[in-house]
């Protein structure tokens, strides 16, 4: 076998090299004079297929293909946070400094900046260190302390450890001699293949929720730290808006936000918005805890396929430091479609709707990289994954939605008719579910309030009762219903408009703590019970409605500021006084 290979065929992002080659599967290669980044995706005895992560226009047969001998990897180290990267971790800011407003093919910039970090060393000569151990720390941003770890697979005795000081990611800080006498240089950063999950000591059970401040999520369909959730919805139902809200307000330490095959303007929006917003926990800019990965829909399709792996690998890296990481992927359908596109070019036998037969296994591999784990270095961390799904024609029976449903335990179904009525977040309470509810109920009971689950369940059953009543109302109108059912409809309206609907642009309503959520529920249910008793005493509901209490409660989300929760007490008095004359 020879080792200087040349391009033979070109079809879009798929390039072939003829003859028997020494390439290994998933090896990273450089294609052509421009050194376009590519990955080996099929090796036959007479040809090798490479998918290229950049535009192949202008490429010629006979141009060289360079082997790297390593699988597709990215650099992990300080400098990721606050940055915006493309699907294969090229820093977009540095690219724009170098190449201007448009992204040319064949441009490569180191992922990590060459800045000097203020490093504190945690090891000294002669120490015995093991894989995953944290050997140095440096403040990466105002909110995040970066902990450099021994790469998985490297253990041994430390030699030539440098003192504390200012170092770049390229400087060698120490050597580790393993048991076989091999020498490994330790730097602030190391490389990791994006398609391999980073190893952990063990997976732990999920008991804490990822608090998002969004009422429909936290109260009705919570996601656990380390869990996976899917947000399916047709266009215009607010998937991206919801992802942005979660990225802004959820109580993870670090956010990895992937714009996978989505709009360029949305990424610009996220970038400017996150910079401006202040993290309620640290008081610093939200960008200080965020990594953005942008592969917009007109960037090369193969890099779109890679962007999801790039993102989850970064998420795992920060998890290994002991952080809770939340990763938003918007949208996984584009990722699946990128797979379909490449599969089509390879002329593979298609399964459902032209998607490749390996779609379910790729999806499950990806979602299984979420989890709450004990790491190799003994810390605990988590990766929560929230994937948006864009079903074709808003049809939830299509393959990506269906397969995603199988591998996530939390399903926030966005609904067109709610979105049309501008009910945001447009999560349909009848179609959505969270299997984490049972695992998390202890946390809610212990941390928020003993009656949290009871309140939540009662609200939920009022909504269910309403939706069956609405079937009747649609046929004969609401006037004929008995008063107790009218009350159900009235309370359900308060729950829908006053509780579930949440205004992302309102300063108080954009994020609501679980405590306030519980207090809101209590007041709404207090009124409901009170009215139910009055109706039992044959007082007509029209008398109750005249008091305007229901409309008052609809406004409660705006009227009670987040820092004045004691104002809720006044509402009980208000209700009691208003209803006093009705018995």
């Amino acid at each position, binding site marked *: 076998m020879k080792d200087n290979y040349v391009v*033979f*065929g*070109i*079809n879009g992002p798929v390039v*072939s090299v*003829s003859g028997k080659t020494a390439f290994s599967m998933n090896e990273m290669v450089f294609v052509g004079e421009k050194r376009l980044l590519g990955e080996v995706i099929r090796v036959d005895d007479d040809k090798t297929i490479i998918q290229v992560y950049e*535009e*192949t*226009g*202008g*490429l*010629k*047969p*006979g141009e060289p293909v360079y082997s790297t001998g390593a699988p597709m990897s990215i650099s992990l180290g300080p400098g990721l946070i606050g940055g*915006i990267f493309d699907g294969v971790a090229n820093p977009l*800011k540095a*690219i*724009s400094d170098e*190449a*201007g*407003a448009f*992204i040319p093919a064949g441009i490569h910039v180191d992922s990590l900046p060459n800045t000097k970090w203020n490093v504190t060393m945690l090891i000294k000569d002669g120490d015995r260190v093991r894989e995953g151990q944290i050997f140095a720390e440096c403040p990466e941003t105002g909110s995040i302390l970066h902990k450099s770890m021994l790469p998985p697979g490297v253990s041994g005795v430390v030699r030539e450890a440098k003192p504390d000081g200012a170092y770049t990611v390229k400087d060698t800080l120490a050597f580790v001699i393993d048991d076989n006498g091999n020498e490994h240089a330790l730097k602030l950063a190391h490389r990791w293949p994006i398609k391999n999950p980073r190893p952990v000591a063990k997976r732990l059970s999920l008991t804490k929720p990822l608090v998002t401040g969004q009422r429909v999520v936290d109260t009705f369909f919570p996601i656990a730290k380390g869990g996976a959730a899917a947000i399916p919805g047709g*266009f*215009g139902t607010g998937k991206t808006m919801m992802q942005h809200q979660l990225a802004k307000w959820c109580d993870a330490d670090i956010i990895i936000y992937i714009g996978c*095959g989505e*709009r*360029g*303007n949305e*990424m*610009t*929006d996220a*970038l400017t918005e996150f910079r401006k917003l202040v993290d309620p926990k640290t008081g610093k800019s939200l960008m200080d805890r965020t990594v953005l990965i*942008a592969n*917009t*829909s*007109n960037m090369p*399709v193969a890099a779109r396929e890679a962007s999801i792996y790039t993102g989850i690998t970064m998420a795992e890296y920060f998890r290994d430091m002991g952080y809770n990481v939340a990763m938003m992927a918007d949208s996984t359908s584009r990722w699946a*479609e990128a797979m*379909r*596109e490449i599969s*089509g*070019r390879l002329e593979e036998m*298609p399964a459902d*709707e*032209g998607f490749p037969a390996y779609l379910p296994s790729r999806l499950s591999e990806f979602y299984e990289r979420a989890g709450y784990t004990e790491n190799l270095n003994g810390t605990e961390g988590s990766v929560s994954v929230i994937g948006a799904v864009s079903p*074709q*024609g*808003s*049809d939830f029976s299509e393959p990506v939605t269906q397969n995603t449903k199988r591998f996530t335990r939390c399903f926030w179904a966005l609904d067109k*008719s709610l979105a*049309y*009525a*501008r009910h945001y977040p447009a999560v349909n309470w009848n179609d959505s579910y969270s299997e984490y509810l049972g695992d998390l109920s202890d946390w809610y009971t212990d941390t928020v309030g003993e009656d949290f689950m009871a309140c939540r369940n009662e609200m939920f059953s009022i909504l269910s009762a309403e939706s069956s009543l609405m079937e009747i109302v649609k*046929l*004969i*109108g*609401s006037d004929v219903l008995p008063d107790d059912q009218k009350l159900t409809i009235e309370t359900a309206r308060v729950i829908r408009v006053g509780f579930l609907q949440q205004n992302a*642009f309102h300063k108080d309503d954009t994020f609501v703590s679980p405590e306030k959520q519980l207090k809101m529920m209590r007041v709404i249910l207090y009124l409901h019970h009170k009215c139910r008793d009055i109706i039992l005493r044959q007082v007509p509901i029209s008398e109750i409605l005249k008091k305007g209490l229901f409309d008052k409660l*609809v406004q409660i989300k*705006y009227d009670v500021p987040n820092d004045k929760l004691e104002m809720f007490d006044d509402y009980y008095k208000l209700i009691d006084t208003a209803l006093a004359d009705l018995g």
Partner: protein
Amino acid sequence: MIIEHLGLSRINGSLIMLDGVKGASYNEMVELRLDDGSSRTGRVVQIDGDSVVIQVFEGTKGISLVNTRTRMTGKPITLGLSPEIVGRVFDGLGRPADGMGEVFSDVRRDINGLPINPVSRVYPRNYINTGISTIDCLMTLIRGQKLPIFSGSGMKHNELAVQIVKQASISDGDNFAIVFAAMGVKNDVADYFRRSFEKSNVMNKVVMFMNRANDPIIERIMTPKVALTAAEYLAYDFDYNVLVILTDMTSYAEALREFSSSKGEIPGRKGFPGYLYSDFASIYERAGIIEGKKGSVTQIPILTMPNDDITNPVPDLTGYITEGQIVLDRTLDANGVYPPVSVLPSLSRLMKDGIGAGYTREDHSMLANQLFSAYARVQDAKSLAGVIGEDELSDSDKRLLEFGKAFEARFVSQGANENRTIEQTLDLGWELLSMLPREELDRVDDETIRKYYKGKQAEQTA
């Protein structure tokens, strides 16, 4: 050194295959000369060693295996550009089609363009006043946005597009240009646009690229790319605010489907190629504003939904890429409502940051939300009335129906030459909302109500 290849190996639809070609590069432009002296243009779409597949833009009619000489140019397909293109008419590949001679080009640009770096984008915020109430109030058009019109055959999308161009342009001062790309439109429709532009005296600001319904299909695949290359040139080299109208994207997608199937690719949904999304994105994502440049590219693509089906891949994938959509409705159209904008499924994603105090008026967002939610309830009342009859409805439902009728007749409907200011539009919105009692308006706060609401409950609340 330029080599001409004599003859071909195979012909299939619009594709020709050629063996024994050395050094062809992917996507390069190819010139074909026929024995009768005519010439055609093509592009390399696939390479396997020394055999090359070429897509011929003008079609392969009349080409045989022996009568053609092929010349590889070694260059990508480029468009010659100069500021003089403004006011001119070109064919779908950017060749002059108005008999006014060649354009002497200053620069040539690759028509495929390059993706804009998200870091270098400026988030669009400047709203464009179209003078059309539904659009200005409920789905505000923002400079640098891509906002398609989803229509169906026979509906008044062309009239609406012309009205937007006329009313948006005139208020906008000098540095305004329109790039109009027709893909597979009927000759008289193309003519209608041209006449309308002339009548409203904007023709000297229009660049037209015409691929009519009887022009070659493969040329159609190039037309939007050519048009957008011209638009980017005007916007980023000459500071124009460019409004690009692309019509009809459905014909474009069908041309792409035809090309894909003749290439033997595995079809996705409804026979469209699996990469339709990426392909659409390579067109739509070329809208935007770039940091440090004064110009902008705003797109209004028009597409006809086959069988009025919004779940068809063409509108569906478009909606996933564009920043909202203006959906036209056949029932409204049949009832004589112009423009027949179906309010509920229509949306502008960028309006949230381009409206309100400092842009339009501080009550805009609340008013729009309230109109949407009230009009959504009108639909429920309507369907209930369909079952039990209008007479049986509760008073509140009757009021809603009344509001719905007035909303369609006065707010949605307006004259084809009627240019409403944003204040007129917003005030009209409040006037209509005042038909409903205060407690049914749950999307507005008390302060706004006091200021704008004119209904009966106003005194009590205040």
